[in-house]
């Protein structure tokens, strides 16, 4: 949506390489979550961050609320990482409602 600007909209990687996805926020957000949507439509929760950096396997995410952005880094990409990645942010002072970005469609090629 307008409050969450996600880039790039599409990304192609070869196996073993890496890249970063980014979300910029036009207003103050209290937290961000990152999701992967697979080919069957299932949304998998990857990270929740209220601040700082978290790492899980080949994925690392950072949320900087002061500078209003969040990133998701993928390293050593594998075929199963293909899918659409969404960031979703929660407005400061508003509990519960997540505003989704438009997604980044990632295709990992052999």
């Amino acid at each position: 949506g307008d409050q969450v600007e996600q880039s790039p909209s599409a990304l192609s990687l070869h196996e073993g390489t890496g890249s970063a996805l980014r979300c910029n926020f036009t207003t103050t957000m209290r937290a961000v979550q990152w999701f992967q949507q697979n080919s069957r439509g299932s949304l998998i929760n990857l990270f929740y961050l209220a601040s700082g950096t978290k790492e899980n396997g080949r994925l690392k995410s950072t949320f900087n609320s002061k500078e209003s952005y969040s990133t998701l880094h993928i390293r050593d990409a594998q075929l199963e990482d293909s899918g659409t990645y969404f960031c979703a942010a929660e407005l400061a002072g508003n509990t519960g409602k997540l505003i989704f970005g438009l997604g980044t469609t990632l295709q990992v090629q052999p």
Partner: protein
Amino acid sequence: GALVYQYPRRTICKSGTSMRMECQAVGFQATSVAWYRQSPQKTFELIALSTVNSAIKYEQNFTQEKFPISHPNLSFSSMTVLNAYLEDRGLYLCGARYNERLFFGHGTKLSVL
């Protein structure tokens, strides 16, 4: 992550009819449940946010009269799409909140003939 079971996975209904979808949190109690609709273009719209023992909050463009929600306990929620028409097509997702994180079921893909 936490498991959320949503059913049916897909449904087809005739224009003007209604369909109900259900959402079950498996092995945990959700502090709230959010119902979203994802359009064919992949954009997400929040329909309503439901917290047990509190009024359900519907977003603009969505009403209780059109999308009635039942949330009787911390593990179960259901939503009905009444009088479905073409513009109601999409993937309906329930998200159960647990420890700040939102966990989604597989979604219910609604097609309208």
